[in-house]
């Protein structure tokens, strides 16, 4: 097996090198030695030969622009993600979110990969994204690219169901100062940014953001208010015509409230509730060097270091991550575009454990080594694109993993694009599932005593084979419709099996679950007038889960824990005198197994720009109910609170 993989790597490695070696004369593309008169006599061939980017890509991609963020009136990144078809976004309490594409949603949705300016924010302990720490100044976000399905990305072993890629603006585009203030019934956010230049080639920005959130609703009272202060910088340096260096970093510190149910060994309740303020601190630094070797060849190298610290009653953890990535893109003959790369990531963690959460050993380090190669071949005069590639990784949990994918895109005319894709992806077991113990409080009436879940050092990776098909229609430039269907086959999903009944019922993590999911995702965009745009999205999802006998998990939780239907309709209206009126209607189907009913919600925003540099707005979010539940937690039993109607006013001043 391992010789085989090595051989594959070696062959992949040698292939392009051979080609480069055989044919490496630079193409003479500098014609400045010709005089103007001579240039006027040069014959050029067809106009349309200029390399055109195919409007389509063979993946289920949706892009949230800065304008989408601004006009939707959202106050956080997770809220903005509600507009993406195929994604389920649910708020558990003021600071906790459950976000996943194509099912299996929970606070620790472990099949999504989230990147912030290229930094992978995947938490190795929870195997998920801690959304309360994933934030930046919303005004500085350039766009958020969301790709559902695997293989849409080149990187990462955990991008099974999708990737969320948050990209901030180049510092050339954030020159000068900005102050933004938002105050309302649910939160107060103050942000400031300053962007400047050193000489001609180095630009930078600095920002601070302070977030205060008041509690959401719960009949028993909520304890989920939070305060987070963060600051950061980014700089972009054009070293010369071929080299650029981006540096980015940040720090945050804060505390967020939660009410958590803890298991105890005292009858009759075997549980107690604690109100606490979770302490969070962290920081990171990232460097990205891009080098243009020649017109058809780019190299990029990225390094980041990230520290994550969190302290709550059940656990205190420090996780340090170092990550290196190197990527090379080269254009090869016969219309090929090859990208390949390698990456290395290592975590060092340290825990203060408790009766509830006790990973073993208390302190450990893990490595993941990645390699990938992808070849994009344009065929039939650029009408079709074939993309084949594979990720190969080695990790300390499960050894070697190969994740190939193939995609084909056919765009005979610009108005129509069809694509098909098949891919394999894996998710690694989390640190918590690998070794250690977790004790869950009783869950009456089904369970009247605490339950212990043990780690399993023999866990294999969860795997997925995914089939996707898409059609993109742009009949006129004012209308576009994107329809995507998928069929996913999951194997070796991690659930648990019973291994003992006393002293406590004890289960062990185990690869004993399979699932089949299918769904349809539609996104459309209609420009009715120059000043009026309508954007719609619809999602259908169905999940069938099969668990082996003796499993602890509830298949219902997976099957009905994600909504069957979701819809979103946004209207963006520009009125005279720089006034904008934007509204957003959403429907999310119920989650019967979690006793969460379906809901409709409406957001309305009124914005006014009296001068170019000043923007004032008022907005009402979740206007249709005074409060509504969206999700309940699965693992750590924090109290789920309901999302309240909120109203706020906001000011953004550029100077």
């Amino acid at each position, binding site marked *: *097996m*391992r010789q085989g993989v*090595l051989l594959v*790597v*070696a062959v992949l*490695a040698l292939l392009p*090198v051979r080609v*480069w070696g055989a*044919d*490496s*004369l*630079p*193409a003479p*593309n*500098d*014609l*400045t030695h010709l*005089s*103007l*008169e001579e*240039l*006027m*006599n*040069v*014959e*050029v*061939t067809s*106009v349309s*030969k*200029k*390399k055109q*980017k195919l409007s389509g890509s063979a993946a289920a991609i949706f892009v949230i622009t800065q304008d989408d963020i601004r006009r939707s009136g959202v106050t956080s990144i997770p809220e903005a993600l509600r507009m993406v078809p195929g994604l389920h976004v649910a708020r558990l309490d003021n600071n906790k979110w459950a976000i996943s594409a194509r099912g299996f949603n929970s606070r620790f949705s472990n099949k999504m990969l989230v990147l912030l300016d290229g930094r992978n924010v995947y938490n190795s302990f929870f195997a998920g994204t801690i959304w309360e720490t994933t934030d930046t100044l919303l005004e500085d976000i350039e766009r958020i690219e969301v790709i559902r399905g695997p293989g849409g990305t080149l990187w990462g072993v955990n991008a099974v169901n999708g990737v969320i890629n948050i990209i901030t603006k180049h510092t*050339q*585009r954030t*020159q000068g100062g900005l102050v933004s203030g938002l105050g309302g019934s649910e939160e107060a956010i103050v942000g400031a940014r300053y962007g400047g230049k050193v000489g*001609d080639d180095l630009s930078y920005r600095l920002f601070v953001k302070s977030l205060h959130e008041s509690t959401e609703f719960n009949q028993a009272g909520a304890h989920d208010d939070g305060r987070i202060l963060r600051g950061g910088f980014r700089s972009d340096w*054009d070293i010369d*015509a*071929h080299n650029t260096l981006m540096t980015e970093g940040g720090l945050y510190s804060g505390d967020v409230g939660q009410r958590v149910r803890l298991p105890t060994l005292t009858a009759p309740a075997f549980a107690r509730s604690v109100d606490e303020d979770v302490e969070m601190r962290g920081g990171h630094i990232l460097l990205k060097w891009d080098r*243009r*070797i*020649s*017109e*058809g*060849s780019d*190299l990029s190298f990225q390094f980041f270091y990230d520290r994550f610290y969190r302290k709550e009653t059940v656990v205190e953890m420090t996780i340090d991550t170092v990550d290196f990535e*190197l990527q*090379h893109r*080269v*254009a090869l003959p016969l219309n090929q575009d090859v990208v390949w790369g390698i990456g290395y990531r290592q975590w060092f963690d340290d825990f203060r454990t408790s009766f509830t959460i006790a990973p073993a050993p208390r302190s450990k380090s893990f490595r993941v*080594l990645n*390699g990938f190669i992808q070849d994009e071949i344009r065929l039939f005069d650029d009408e079709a694109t074939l993309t084949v590639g594979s990720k190969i990784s*080695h990790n300390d949990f*499960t*050894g*070697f993993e190969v994740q190939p994918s193939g995609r084909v895109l056919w765009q005979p005319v610009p108005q129509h694009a069809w694509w098909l894709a098949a891919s394999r992806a894996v998710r690694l077991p989390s640190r918590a599932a690998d070794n250690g113990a977790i004790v869950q409080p009783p869950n009456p009436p089904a369970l009247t005593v605490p339950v212990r879940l043990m780690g399993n050092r*023999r866990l*294999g990776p969860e795997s997925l084979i995914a089939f996707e098909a898409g059609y993109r229609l742009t009949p006129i430039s004012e209308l576009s419709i994107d329809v995507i269907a998928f069929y996913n086959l999951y194997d*070796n999903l991690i659930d648990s099996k019973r291994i003992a009944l006393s002293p406590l019922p004890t289960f062990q993590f185990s*690869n004993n679950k399979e699932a089949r999911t299918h769904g349809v995702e539609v996104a459309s965009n209609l420009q009715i007038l120059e000043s009026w745009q309508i954007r719609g999205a619809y999602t259908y999802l169905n999940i069938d889960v099969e668990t082996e006998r003796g499993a602890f998990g509830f298949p219902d939780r997976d099957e009905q824990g994600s909504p069957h239907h979701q819809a979103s309709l946004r209207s963006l209206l520009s009125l005279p005198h720089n006034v904008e009126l934007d509204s957003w209607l959403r429907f999310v189907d119920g989650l019967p197994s979690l006793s969460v009913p379906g809901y409709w919600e409406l957001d309305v925003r009124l914005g006014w720009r009296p001068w170019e540099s000043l923007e004032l707005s008022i907005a009402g979010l979740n206007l249709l109910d005074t409060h509504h539940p969206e999700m309940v937690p699965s693992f750590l039993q924090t109290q789920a609170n309901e999302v309240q109607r909120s109203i706020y006013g906001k000011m953004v001043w550029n100077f």
Partner: protein
Amino acid sequence: MIRHRLPSRCVNSFCTVLLAVVMGSVVFSGGAFADSPREYQVKAAFLYHFVQFTEWPEHVFTGPDMRIRICVYGDDPFAEYLVGTFMGKMLHARRFRIQPRVSASTSHSCHVIFLNREIDATRPDVRRALQRSQALTVGEADDFLEQGGMIQFYRVEKNIRFAINPNALKRKQIRLSSKLLRLARVKSK
């Protein structure tokens, strides 16, 4: 379910192979392979000559070593041809800098802005970008000069020609040498 826990020797050899790939590519990938469409190579060369024959008002260069910025409006692969054409060259002891994806917020520092045929110069964001800059504007759209552009490329059969709008140049106090004016079709109003 089966674990492949590997001895570190194997991980090391995996690293070695990957390292070899890196080294190999860095060494061998010096050459360019793209068979660049000739039209844009030619246009890049034209642009180079335009710059030689252009005189900007004194104040657009804030320092003696400020570079001459050649900007490309929006997301346009033309910037790549410009890099190949301008790299390593100098004009009056000033180096060049190619700036892709220019928009209204970054156009003010450009000396030349290129706009491809898909860009409508009457769009508010484009208009704002052009108003804010002191740049020589070069475009491809058929009505580029009517919309206030300075130099427009056009085709006669398989040859590339250019036309000039003297009024637009005068407004921004940009002077072109008589050689350019002689070769261009001049738009008169």
